[in-house]
């Protein structure tokens, strides 16, 4: 119940200010731009969106997702409103959940607004819409993972810029780990076990299988547990800061 109240407040705040609109417009421009330029959407003639469209999402999210999440706790701590929140009869956990879901909703809206591309491939060809749905789920989960990381970082600092830089750095690392070109180079330098370990930290392994339309339990568990651990960490940091 109190999660819902906080969720509504945060969501209103995103859409009452330019933040959400700016992010959504830039996301749409980038994702469409990349699909039609480097993704060679028209030339490839492939109705599945795996390589032309979804492939670009982690690259965009690693830069833009932290911009949505950075204010979540940093701003509360800078303006002192965390003291209000801390003396309302709500648990830290329900505030965390409410805020996280609000940020995730902004991204859900952004992803839903890419619907014209789905209409286009259905008009031009005969794609597997189940696979496209799985691709969207994969994108959304990658985005939520990055938001959860940002939230964790945001609990540590009252400075939004610091939060943005640190979160982007972590997200970029997670995208590079497990990206083929990067791991190939890495394999030359280190042992296979190290490469295995690094790939498992990256998002590609889990993102790709969903992107191919494959619902693997292990991927869903990986995303869910990663997000959960970040939110739990946020709660731990916020409590530790008060003690």
């Amino acid at each position, binding site marked *: *119940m*109190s999660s819902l*109240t*906080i969720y*509504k*407040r945060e969501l*209103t*705040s995103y859409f*009452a*200010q330019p933040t959400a609109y700016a992010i959504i417009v830039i996301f749409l421009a980038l994702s469409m731009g990349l699909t039609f330029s480097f993704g060679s959407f028209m030339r490839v003639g492939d109705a599945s969106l795996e390589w032309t469209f979804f492939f670009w999402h982690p690259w965009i999210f690693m830069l833009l997702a932290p911009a949505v999440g950075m204010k979540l706790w940093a701003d509360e701590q800078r*303006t*002192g*409103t965390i*003291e*209000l929140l*801390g*003396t*309302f*009869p*709500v*648990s830290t956990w329900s505030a965390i959940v409410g805020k996280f879901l609000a940020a995730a909703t902004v991204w859900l809206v952004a992803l839903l607004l890419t619907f014209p591309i789905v209409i286009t491939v259905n008009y031009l060809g005969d794609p597997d819409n189940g696979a496209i749905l799985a691709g969207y789920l994969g994108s959304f989960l990658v985005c939520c993972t990055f938001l959860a990381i940002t939230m964790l970082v945001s609990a540590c600092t009252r400075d939004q810029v610091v939060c943005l830089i640190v979160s982007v750095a972590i997200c970029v690392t997670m995208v590079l780990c497990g990206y083929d070109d990067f791991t190939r180079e890495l394999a030359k330098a280190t042992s296979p076990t190290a490469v295995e370990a690094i790939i498992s930290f990256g998002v590609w392994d889990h993102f790709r299988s969903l992107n191919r339309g494959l619902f693997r339990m292990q991927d869903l568990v990986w995303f869910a547990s990663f997000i959960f651990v970040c939110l739990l960490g946020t709660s731990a940091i916020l409590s530790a800061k*008060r*003690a």
Partner: protein
Amino acid sequence: MIEVENLTKQFGSKLAVDDLSFIVKKGEVLGFLGPNGAGKSTTMRMITGFLPPTSGDAKVCGISVIDNPMAAKTKVGYLPESAPLYLDMTVIGFLKFCASIRGLAGSDRNDAVERAIETCFLTSVAKQSIDTLSKGYRHRTGLAQALLHDPEVLILDEPTDGLDPNQKYEVRQLIKRLGKDKAILFSTHILEEVDAACTRAVIVDRGRIVADGTPAELHAQSGSGSLTDLFRSLTTRDTEEAA
């Protein structure tokens, strides 16, 4: 109504609040005096459940803030120092949010918001965004937030700080009026407020109570009849401490 029992707070090696005990009964307005850094805000933050004490306990209406923080928080209205608010909201939007989070809904919520707006003279700015308001209005919005759920206990951290003389007068009158059927603890630097609004006052210095009594008793204790003299003789100046 408020029972503080051997409350202690240690930040690293610094003892901010040192074994503090006092009681505020219903119908009492307790002025909390002391130099900057004496531990006034820290004490208030512990009573409101924002900071966990190192040792000791505080009870609000008989409910321990340590054993049952959620229930204790519902009994308290709290104005934090410098009245932090969500600047992107309108006054009425903010108050509705605070009322919802305190579990008020429907017409109860609207009535509570309307009453708080009237009590704090906010009618003229109710639909304005908080970041456009002057300090006086912001303070009163913070105060309105603390009164929303008609709490039995009010804790106000420097409620008159930064207000003009007219606004100070109004807030003191309000505190006096509310104090008739509530327990109020408020901190201040302004010694005249002891006579103007308090039924009792304590002076704290370096986390300990150094004087406690009704305004008349304190005047008598000072010898010269001046509270300023009493204050200066009992508390440590920060210049002194450094030497």
